[in-house]
């Protein structure tokens, strides 16, 4: 009996698996292996060190600036860090960043979902593939080019739309236009929407493509129209994917710098009307104020950058959490 139990136990001994965390005792004794493991683990640790350093250094410089600040950092409408006493606050920047990103999301999310559906369910297969390829390429167009295009092509073309909005919706106060150049937060929202279209489309498309074929065929077999198939099997399946895609897009819109800096005619105040020039965003403010900033001015800009950092961390973290629930795809490369 003893012998048989022993023999049956043999296969149960832990086998050194390739991807097993602990290297086998013999493997670890080889100097080559130890060096290589050290190098690769070191690189992994370096990534952690960089992230910790970013948080630590930004917090340190921000603390220096906030120590001198005489105004409330979160509610003050002023930005005068080199004044005596220094006064600066992020209320205007937070308002501008949120408003422009919300406009961008409202425009971009439905359209992106539409294009993603078009590619996966409506267009002929070859055309869909070609469009997907082109949109992949467009995701790589740098923001500075969007900025140049926005300032020299989009802005002149928006006067008609501004006039129309003022005529018909001006009474709301939100769309009142005083006839200035259309370089307002509303324009920024439109431009950001165009910039984040490709990324939201790419990720949504990946999700829609993974909808189990059987679900769709079952719906079709019950006599559903194409729209009913999409509403009943594609959209419910892809909802979490679309949400995380939108949040990745939002993360990009929040941190966008150059396009906003080139197009927005910024000033440090909050307007009730979206069509009036003025306002600013975190990233734009850093880029535009950096040149003439003094030492404390730079620290104040770093403090506002820290706020942007925290906001994007939260948004991206939420997106990643939703993605992590569905392990099948990764939006990281999109």
């Amino acid at each position, binding site marked *: 009996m003893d012998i048989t139990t022993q023999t049956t136990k043999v296969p149960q001994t832990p086998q050194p698996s390739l991807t097993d965390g602990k290297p086998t005792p013999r493997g670890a004794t080889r100097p080559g292996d130890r060096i290589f493991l050290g190098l690769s683990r070191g690189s992994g640790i370096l*990534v952690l060190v960089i992230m910790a350093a*970013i948080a630590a250094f*930004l917090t340190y*410089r921000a603390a220096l600036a906030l120590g001198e600040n005489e105004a409330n950092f979160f509610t003050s409408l002023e930005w005068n860090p080199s004044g005596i006493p220094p006064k600066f606050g992020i209320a205007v920047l937070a308002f501008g960043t949120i408003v422009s990103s919300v406009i961008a999301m409202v425009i971009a999310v439905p359209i992106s979902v*539409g294009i993603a559906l078009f590619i996966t369910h409506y267009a002929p297969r070859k055309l869909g593939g070609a469009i997907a390829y082109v949109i992949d390429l467009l995701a790589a167009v740098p923001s500075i*080019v969007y900025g140049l295009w926005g300032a020299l092509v989009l802005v002149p073309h928006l006067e008609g739309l501004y006039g129309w909005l003022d005529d018909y919706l001006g009474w709301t106060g939100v769309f009142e236009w005083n006839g200035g150049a259309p370089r307002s937060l509303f324009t920024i929202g439109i431009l950001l929407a165009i910039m984040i279209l490709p990324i939201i489309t790419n990720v949504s498309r990946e999700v829609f493509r993974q909808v189990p074929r059987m679900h769709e065929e079952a719906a079709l077999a019950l006599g559903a129209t194409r729209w009913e198939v999409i509403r009943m099997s594609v959209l419910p399946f892809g909802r979490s994917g679309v949400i995380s895609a939108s949040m990745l897009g939002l993360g990009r819109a929040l941190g966008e710098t150059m396009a906003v800096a080139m197009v927005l005619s910024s000033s440090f105040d909050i307007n009730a009307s979206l069509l009036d020039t003025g306002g600013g965003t975190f990233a734009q403010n850093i880029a535009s104020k950096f040149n003439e900033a003094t030492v404390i001015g730079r620290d104040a800009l770093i403090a506002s950058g820290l706020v942007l950092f925290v906001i994007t961390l939260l948004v991206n973290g939420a997106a990643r959490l939703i993605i992590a629930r569905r392990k099948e795809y990764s939006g990281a490369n999109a």
Partner: protein
Amino acid sequence: MSHATLSPRRSSLRGATLPKWFAWAVAAGSVAAGLGISAAAGLESSIQWALIAAVLFVLGSYAVSAKVEGRRQAKDRTATSLVWVAFLLAVVPLASLMWETVKRGVKVLDGYFLTHSMGVVADTEPGGGIYHAILGTLEQVGLATVISVPVGVLTAIYLVEYGRGRLAKAVTFFVDVMTGIPSIVAGLFILSVWVLMLDMGPSGFAGSMALSILMIPVVVRSTEEMLKLVPNELREASLALGVPKWRTILKVVLPTSIGGITTGVMLAIARITGETAPVLLLVWVTNFINANPFQDPQASLPMYIYLQYQNSGGYGAAYDRAWAAALTLIAFIMILNMVARGIARWKAPKTGR
């Protein structure tokens, strides 16, 4: 529900359906009506008549289809038109972006433009070129690549080949977080360490460090995906022959996935080449040729575009140069992208199935 007034085909089992040319007929009708209305009302913008036509098309096809085919089919038609409208709406700005960049960019883009700097050219005058900016971009991006590729590839190897437990989980999570860092924040970080604490001046290298913070996570992610595709049988065969693990990784795993890794690195390069914000904070810009990336401000293509735009004073010459530089930048990035995707398709790892 269905009245077979318009439908030529009707059987007892199928509801009435509209013929295939119906959509085209409504489209032609609404375009004509849109043109007619805008001509009558004296509207000049082509966007307006297109919008009128689109609205007429959606309403018209819904009304007729609801009458003939029933509510559900009509809704389906409306959804189809809305999806097409979404697609066309997105195509207009993106196509305009490419078209305007090419049209305005080719004006001054020639051999002279590519081989001369802005040394003695005033911003408002024609002439000058982007040689100094191309040089700076290549050096900064090259340095960033030299920093990021070893770190990124080794981190990916750690995650796939060794990583288990808390450290690996933490690294995975923070690589994800790092992907989402806004480029201006990466610039501010290097600014606070390199410039404010170590008291160094602006240089191409400072910019490269910020760019590599943006590049490392992209390299890690794509390399990780590729290493995971390498079949385990290959590793096992090599280990069974007594080859040490590190030699297995270097001689078996990496060569198998090298095509995919190259693709990932090239896409990462394409991504950071157009980054402007960190360069604005750390490298600044100059009109002169500076071949040394470790000292003094250096030009780069994105900053060149920004400078020409800011200092144009409304003169066309500077705008022309900005567009030409934008075209050069886009062409460079697009070629990198296409070559990278080509390599990916050509050298796709054999998954053993």
